[in-house]
């Protein structure tokens, strides 16, 4: 992931989805529950039983929804490729093709499949439309105000500092074309240090501004809200499905 990816992700707004009828807090809870259950699956039957729900989510908004999920999946799989390559080499078990363990190959395939299923669930259910929705979700989940303020400010400052970081990075690269390794590291350390000093100055100004407005109270106004019957019924149905997936995994039903 690069700084430009962060800016692009922040500028990108998810298109309206059929899943929007579901409460954002419910969606985060559902994605966490589903991710936990899928993490526990190991047998082929269990993995098969756990696949329909994420696949349904992926194709729920038609070809466009599936395509946007696939773009993220490509990035996720690229990162985990190395880990999955190591497993057949290091996992104990019967060797095939001299170096690779049969159990390791199965394990790598299972982990990759689980990673993709969980990523789809997170992309479709937990990836929220922006800080406003995250704040509301946390309000509904009764997360303490301090944590909500920290998240709001961190997201805001990431976008604020990213522009500054790109400018400084360009400056470092222009200044030191082919430096020796320690010199290059020194330039990068000084650049990070300068960004930190700027951010400290900015933090002090922000603290004063917040104090002028009357402190942290009222800074984050996430509503606690109540679940609708649709939220409760759909969450209950999902729990029932996940329990049956676990039953298939452990009892082999």
């Amino acid at each position, binding site marked *: 992931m690069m700084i430009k990816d962060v800016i692009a*992700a922040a500028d990108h707004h998810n298109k309206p989805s059929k899943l929007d009828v579901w409460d954002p807090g419910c969606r985060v809870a559902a994605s966490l529950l589903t991710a936990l259950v899928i993490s526990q699956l190991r047998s082929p039957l269990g993995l098969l039983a756990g696949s329909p729900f994420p696949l349904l989510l992926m194709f729920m908004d038609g070809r466009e929804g599936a395509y946007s999920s696939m773009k993220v999946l490509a990035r996720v799989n690229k990162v985990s490729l190395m880990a999955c390559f190591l497993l057949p080499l290091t996992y104990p078990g019967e060797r095939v093709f001299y170096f690779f363990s049969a159990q390791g190959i199965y394990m790598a395939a299972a982990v990759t499949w689980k990673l993709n299923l969980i990523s789809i669930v997170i992309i479709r259910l937990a990836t929220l439309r922006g800080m406003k929705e995250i704040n509301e979700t946390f309000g509904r989940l009764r997360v303490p105000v301090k944590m909500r303020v920290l998240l709001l400010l961190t997201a805001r400052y990431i976008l604020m*500092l990213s522009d500054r970081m790109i400018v400084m990075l360009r400056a470092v690269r222009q200044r030191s074309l082919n430096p020796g390794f320690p010199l290059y590291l020194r330039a990068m350390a000084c650049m990070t*240090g300068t960004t930190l000093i700027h951010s400290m100055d900015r933090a002090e100004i922000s603290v004063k501004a917040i104090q002028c407005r009357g402190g942290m109270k009222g800074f984050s106004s996430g509503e606690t809200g109540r679940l609708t019957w649709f939220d409760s019924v759909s969450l209950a149905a999902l729990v029932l499905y996940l329990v049956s997936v676990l039953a298939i995994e452990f009892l082999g039903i």
Partner: protein
Amino acid sequence: MHISEGFLSVPVLSAGWLLAAGEVAYGLKKTEPEGIVRVAMISSAFFLASLINIRVGPGATHLSLIAPMGLLLGWGAPPAVFAALFLQAVLFQFGGLAVLGANTVSMGGAALCVYILFGKIVRDNNRGIQTIAAFAAGAFGVMMGVGMTGLWLVLSDRSLFPAAWLLVASHLPLAVIEGIFTAFLVIFLKRTFPDVLEPVRLK
């Protein structure tokens, strides 16, 4: 250094979430309301700095910046790590949600250990000792973070022990690079703005 989704078992994931909740709640409790702004600002600066590619020979690597985070934030480091990882997952579609607890414990815990072990030495001594301590802190932060990641893997499945060892060994060069980087960073901050090395005010 992050663990991807799919590797850890549910008991380990639950233990990760429990430990992370304790670490983050205590960190938030100890941080004054005004300190939250500083935690957020430094957390974002580190989040961005860790995305920069550092060229190493023919390849490139990302810095983890665990040690500078621990030295600058103290007890504020675990909430800062949690916030950065959570936003990565839900806002920027990168990283996992179920493994968020384990990753917070690995990186936030390592930052906290750096603060406890090296914080005072880096702040109070002469420049030579500070530089050596900063280098040690940088290398220690990486090795502790990756060591904890390896531990989560082994706790999940004992057969992952060789893979965990390989993971730890492969991070040795990064530990050296991070040590040098942290030493340069501490020297720079001591010269230009020494107050920044005072950790976030605690209750």
